[in-house]
């Protein structure tokens, strides 16, 4: 079993919130010992163990994968349906009507995403014996009694199952919520809102979306709810999301996996390589913003093990690229990716802005982005 312990969506910021983050970890850099010239000339076989970000790769060896190499439902499926079995484990703060609304509203956020051909729907649920859940041919969303008593444990899980001869098809996904979570973590009065955000995030995993970065604001120094609102909320699939509706980053990710006719031709991409002291800036994050009046975050992407990034699904026009390190290291952010980035010294570089002009139907590869160390306080 592969555990992707990589996110904490919708964690409340209200009174009594016991921040479940681990102690600060060392970000001391180890020398990467990587030569650009050598890498440019060598064929590389990826062999990095760990978890994945943004898209779910076919191979567990990959941390970062492009959309066209990622796991997904067969596009011909048309509609992915979810059921809501009654496991008898509703928490005190959630009544059956609220729970039905939560799942219905969460599913609705992923239905008819612009640019995506995939439909998403809820079908009727029924009382269920928990022994019958799991791999049963149905995509189930439910409170899982086995979580009870694990107040500080995992909040929620999206569990994928399936394979087919092409090796890249999802055939089932269950979302399991810890019944203790709403009662313990969610402030009174916002339980439904928070729970909807959590279920929305988990259902996103069911489509093959993995975690992504929050928008580049220092959310853990200035509380997000006091930060200027222009960059809020972060994407639903960010591991710190408090998002209500899907962001452009979420919508583009969905459209890249399940493109509607014409989506690819209507968007462009920008790619390149990010380096730090002559070595690949592995897992640096590249966030796009549309260069027009107002603040319009577009999609983003992590640089891969070779420091190469590929931001696809960008609206044509000029974009600003904001390159920054992974911003948070929560108990549920990927320890593998954080460790890999820390080992390469890529948690410690200065943010950088660059510009590019994106053309529909084309990928623009820009010259290397060269970063400088110095983000960590001295």
């Amino acid at each position: 079993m592969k555990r992707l312990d990589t996110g904490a969506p919708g964690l409340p910021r209200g009174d009594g919130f016991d921040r479940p983050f681990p102690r600060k970890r060392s970000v001391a850099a180890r020398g990467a010992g990587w030569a650009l010239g050598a890498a440019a000339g060598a064929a590389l076989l990826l062999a990095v163990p760990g978890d994945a970000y943004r898209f779910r790769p076919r191979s567990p060896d990959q941390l970062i994968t492009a959309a066209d190499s990622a796991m997904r439902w067969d596009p011909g499926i048309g509609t992915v349906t979810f059921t809501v079995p009654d496991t008898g484990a509703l928490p005190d703060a959630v009544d059956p009507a609220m729970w039905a609304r939560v799942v219905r509203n969460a599913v609705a956020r992923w239905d008819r995403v612009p640019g995506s051909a995939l439909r998403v729907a809820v079908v009727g649920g029924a009382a269920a014996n928990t022994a019958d859940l799991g791999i049963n041919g149905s995509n189930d969303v439910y409170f899982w009694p086995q979580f009870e008593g694990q107040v500080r444990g995992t909040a929620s899980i999206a569990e994928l199952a399936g394979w087919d001869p092409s090796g890249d098809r999802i055939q089932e996904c269950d979302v399991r919520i810890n019944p203790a979570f709403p009662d313990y973590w969610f402030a009174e009065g916002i339980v439904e809102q928070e729970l909807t955000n959590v279920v929305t995030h988990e259902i996103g995993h069911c489509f093959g979306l993995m975690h992504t970065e929050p928008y580049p604001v220092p959310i853990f120094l200035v509380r997000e709810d006091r930060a200027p609102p222009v960059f809020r909320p972060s994407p639903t699939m960010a591991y710190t999301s408090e998002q209500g509706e899907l962001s452009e980053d979420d919508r583009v990710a969905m459209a890249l996996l399940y493109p509607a006719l014409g989506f690819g031709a209507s968007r462009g991409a920008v790619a390149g390589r990010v380096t730090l002291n002559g070595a690949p800036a592995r897992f640096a994050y590249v966030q796009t913003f549309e260069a027009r009046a107002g603040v319009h975050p577009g999609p983003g992407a992590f640089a891969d093990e070779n420091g190469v990034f590929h931001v696809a699904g960008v609206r044509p026009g000029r974009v600003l690229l904001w390159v920054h390190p992974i911003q948070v290291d929560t108990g549920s952010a990927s320890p593998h990716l954080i460790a890999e980035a820390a080992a390469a010294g890529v948690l410690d570089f200065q943010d950088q802005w660059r510009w590019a002009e994106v053309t529909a139907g084309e990928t623009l590869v820009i010259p290397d982005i060269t970063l400088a160390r110095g983000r960590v306080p001295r």
Partner: protein
Amino acid sequence: MIAHVPVAAILAATALLGFAACGGGEGTDGGGLPTTPPPTPAPPPGEQIVLKLASSLVPASGAVRVVEGGVFFAEVRVLGLSPGSPLGGSEAGFQFAVVTDAPPDELRTPYAVTPRFPRIKVSGVARFAIEALPDGRTGEADAAYTIRLAPPAGGLPAGLTLADDALRVVVVDSPPVRCGGLDVTARFGGSEARRMRTGEITLAASHPDASVSMVHPYETKIDIDDFPHPPASSLFTTGFAATGTGDGFRATIPFRWTDFNRVELDARLPGCPPVTVRCDDGCSVR
């Protein structure tokens, strides 16, 4: 269309892929469903094994446009491998070559740089870098080239073929850099409540590769032990407005910072000395 897949078929054909556990806590394992790893994909036997050249960067309709100095990766994948194939047991994988019609001083592929043949494992994906080399030319038309797979020395093993795909790559001439083509202004906005100060920089650049870096936003004295890790600056932008102008951009970037920090940003064009913006009790540009 609603998908109806027989449960028995799914039970026969599925295995747990894994799960994404989201939330804080002490790493409690959710436990649960079976732990069988996914089986190796099994296409019908008898199909030809094909090595296919691809790139995630290549859109269906167009080319990859690579600005001089840019690097991208192409991939080679194995298609059609079946368990019964005589090549299926090859742990060492297959060799292949990469050829291009581009001059070696324009486009560098691994074949041109490294006089040996890349190898792809049976179940893997081989990636190799392609780099558009700076050649100093300016004002010339963009050049288009193709990249293809080719047999290695000694030929291909029986049963293995190469897909007749080609990557189309357009090498884009980078516009010349004029070091004076960067205009930076800074405005100090004053102090606010909660020990915050405000400022705004405006950058007008004549070249798309103009960059702005934060140099000194991180001298925080706040005790960050309770925070997840150090990259938590006390400077943040509060928005920006950016528009295109000719070959370049104009961007206005307002920001805030705490009053015990000095803010310093470097704006620069490639190969030119930086223009430094410094804000503390006021803002200056030098």
